[in-house]
């Protein structure tokens, strides 16, 4: 497919039109912070180099979502889904959405998650690239090209102050139009260098986990902002006699996450919970699904009040594994 060239103002006008059809989620300023949020005015949309504070996973996996309603003698699915257009998703966030797709919809998972699929089918993603690497970003080490992602429905490139829209799928075709132009040349994808290739037994007990987590206060902000964290809880709420089952996020950084009814808890210590978080992304999901579920966006590193660093932790583990080999 070819690309279309249009000015920023034309793009905003097109966006205003799209807002009639879609719920548009895009980076907007929210309390002095750039966030993916619902756009009410096309002029608010900010398309620049900054990475939004939160990840866009809420578009497919909301923090609180009604999933089932109990009625007299029967149940019905209770999702409230609108077509969503996600504009300006960074390549790392697109990669993370792909990871979630793999976990919730692929055949390797034995079961498919229909609630996720319902939402995913209604989502159109238009990406936008980064021009520079920010502090704590490590997408290049995770093998993600920060300037472009082919795994979305369309892509916005910035060329000399203008926008070059490049549709990539049928869904993304025709969202923005303008004078036809050649799509820009792409660099090759960087190599995925940050990953753990080892057996569970080599990593689980032998690494100095306690030294990685000294600053942790157990606030769970890392999992809250992470674009690939997807643990959840099902919870019933009753309102005026109607019982609704909601799906809410949960976090492995909380001690109650694994607490058994009997009082037994397999993960009582901070280091065990951090180990679960790191290894779930870098060892267990690769084992089960064949990809590492970390997109290198660096949100967990930037926001951690205790200074925990998943990148440093993983590279330390890699070094130690190398040493052990020799």
């Amino acid at each position, binding site marked *: 497919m070819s690309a279309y060239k249009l000015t920023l103002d034309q793009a905003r006008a097109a966006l205003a039109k799209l807002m009639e059809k879609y719920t548009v989620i895009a980076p907007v300023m929210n309390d002095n912070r750039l966030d993916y949020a619902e756009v009410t005015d096309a002029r608010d949309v900010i398309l620049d180099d900054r990475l939004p504070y939160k990840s866009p996973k809420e578009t497919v996996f909301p923090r609180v979502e009604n999933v089932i309603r109990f009625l007299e003698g029967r*149940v019905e699915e209770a999702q409230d889904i609108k077509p969503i257009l996600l504009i300006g998703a960074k390549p790392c966030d697109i990669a993370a959405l792909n990871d979630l797709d793999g976990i919730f919809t692929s055949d390797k998972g*034995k079961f498919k998650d229909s609630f996720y699929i319902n939402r995913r089918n209604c989502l159109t993603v238009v990406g936008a690239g980064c021009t520079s690497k920010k502090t704590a970003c490590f997408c290049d080490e995770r093998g993600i090209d920060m300037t472009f992602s082919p795994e979305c429905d369309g892509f916005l490139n910035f060329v000399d102050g203008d926008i070059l829209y490049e549709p990539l799928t049928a869904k993304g075709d025709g969202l923005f139009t303008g004078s036809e132009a050649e799509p820009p040349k792409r660099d090759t994808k960087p190599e995925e260098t940050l990953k753990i290739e080892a057996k569970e037994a080599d990593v689980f007990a032998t690494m100095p986990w306690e030294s990685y987590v000294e600053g942790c206060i157990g606030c769970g902000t890392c999992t809250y902002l992470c674009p690939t964290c*997807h643990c959840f809880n*099902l919870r019933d709420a009753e309102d005026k006699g109607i019982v609704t089952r909601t799906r809410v996020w949960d976090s492995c950084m909380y001690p109650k996450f694994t607490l058994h*009814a009997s009082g037994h808890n397999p993960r009582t210590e901070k280091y065990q919970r951090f180990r679960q978080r790191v*290894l779930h992304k870098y060892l267990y999901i690769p084992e089960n699904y064949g990809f590492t579920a970390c997109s290198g966006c660096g949100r967990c590193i930037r926001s951690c009040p205790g200074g925990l660093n998943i990148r440093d932790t993983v590279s330390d583990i890699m070094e130690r594994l190398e040493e052990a080999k020799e």
Partner: protein
Amino acid sequence: MSNRNPYVPSRATILEVIQETKSDTQDVKTFKLKLDEPFDFRPGQFVEFSVAGVGECTFGFASSPLIKDHLELTIKRTGYVTDNIHMLSEGSTVWIRGPFGNTFPLEEMEGNDLFYVTGGLGLAPLRPMIDYVFDPAYRGKYGKINMLMAARTPGDFIFAYDFDKWSKMPDTSLYQTIDNPVEGWDKLVGFPHTLIDQIPFDKEKTIAILCGPPVMIKALSNAFVQFGMSPERIYTTLEMRMTCGIGKCGKCNIGHKYVCIDGPVFSMAELSEMPNEY
């Protein structure tokens, strides 16, 4: 696997509530359920059981898979959801989705002796297998059966009404043990892992099946291995906090294995390769 959304439960009605334990706590009940949409299951599997407005919990089946018209779940009162379940009476509507999880390798076990060791409520998830093996159609395929049931006090045994029937089965020995001596108790006393050397069994021919609290499983499997049994011949069924039952919610993993889809039945050989985090 059908196209049915695995999150959507189907309705069931409580037919009967049986008070199991006779001790002071009286905290275990068995619920006999009639399902609107009956399903087949195999010993070892579990269901997600919910009371609308209260929440969902995971329970292993506690009745024979050969019974088709109803199923039973044995539930101990330990928390918010189970408290509410215990308040239910006959005729109440509950919701069930399942069955989930893997099963005991019944076919592979054929031709072997079986040794069940259970602690407290751990007898419940083994009952489908016990009843299945005792069924006249299948009893001939297995050798001698030993059963060692442990409970805290004499009143804490569940399914005590079945013990008489089970002990009269051909080629079967049933032992009961309690934690501390009590007046009038003439059976065994002590934790199961200290007692297995008092029970005659052929360690080459026997497959051990353990279920109970995590501490008991760890101690028992060590005892069996020290006794000279191979870890491949020791099976257990694990419990973990679970939400979805289909490997999505991220709660019940031990290493990369999810107890809800790769388990709950594991052999000790499998468990020894998994991280020690259960």
